[in-house]
């Protein structure tokens, strides 16, 4: 009984509301991933891009990584790209986590400048979804509602936005 109640409570917490935002252009900033490659979120124009602000010390953030990896595998060929931006993680810890988890998309060391370029990130995890048009179509604050996210990804992939 306790297990059932706990499971229901967990499900309710995970299914936190999604904050939709009006479409804004993705900031023109240059990021460097852990392999030293430079990437620019606005340079992905033509693709659907997911930007996930997270941290290795943040339990719900870590729990989401395998699901982002699945989305990356599933939709890569249709023009989907995930990018992880870690906040306040020591580089060594971050590298170890990414190696052990075999993260299949670029991970960037984030900072205040990068967070503010996206309008501020005042809690983790926070995820943005950018359309093929280079505009931010959705912002998810707190634990991601993955069924809803996947719906929005497929809609963006199909719509051409």
């Amino acid at each position, binding site marked *: 009984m306790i297990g059932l109640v706990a499971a229901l409570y967990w499900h309710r917490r995970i299914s936190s509301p999604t904050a939709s935002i009006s479409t804004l252009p993705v900031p023109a900033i240059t990021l460097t991933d852990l392999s030293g490659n430079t990437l620019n979120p606005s340079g992905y124009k033509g693709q659907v891009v997911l930007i996930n602000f997270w941290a290795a010390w943040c339990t719900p953030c870590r729990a989401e990584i395998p699901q982002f990896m699945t989305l990356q595998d599933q939709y890569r060929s249709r023009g989907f790209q995930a990018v992880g931006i870690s906040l*306040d993680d020591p580089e060594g810890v971050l590298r170890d986590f990414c190696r052990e988890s075999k993260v299949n998309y670029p991970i960037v060391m984030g900072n205040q400048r990068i967070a503010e370029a996206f309008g501020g990130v005042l809690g983790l995890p926070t995820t943005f979804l950018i359309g093929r048009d280079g505009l931010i179509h959705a912002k998810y*604050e707190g634990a991601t509602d993955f069924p809803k996210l996947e719906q929005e990804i497929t809609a963006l992939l199909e719509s051409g936005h």
Partner: protein
Amino acid sequence: MKLFKRLLCRRGLFVPILIAVAALLTALFAGVHSGGKNGGPAKAPSTVSELPPGSTDLIRPEELAKALQASAKPTVLNVGPRVIYVQAHIPGAEYIGPMAKPEGLEKLRARAALLPRDSFLVIYCGCCPWEHCPNIRPAYKELRQMGFTRLKVLYIENSFGSDWVEKGYPTAKGE
């Protein structure tokens, strides 16, 4: 008894019965040890590290916002990540750092050592959803052990952004 023996010996029923008996015994044991023997609802023991949502040691954002307007303001300490603090924090809040790092706990001890134990002290984080915050409970536990009698923990259910900034409470920026 004969029926029970027959059921127990019947192939396929032994394991489910064993599980059911074990679950029943566990439930009875838990009931006795949580104070449920009086027939009333079992009350969960409150430990310093739990900080359940109804705890009297919590302060809600609206209560803190009001307290910050009073003449005797509380001392507010931020025990979260710097990257969030520099973007937005409670005006007057001092930055201590995350408790997930050992230096954070040391810094908290050093700062708190300078305060009278009966001072109105508020700690907050808001890095991530309440039940997952790795910083707030270690900080609370440490300060309780140091003997602070008017310690309050700001209850931030989701994040500092959604539960403080977006609600329109006063915010400062920078170091």
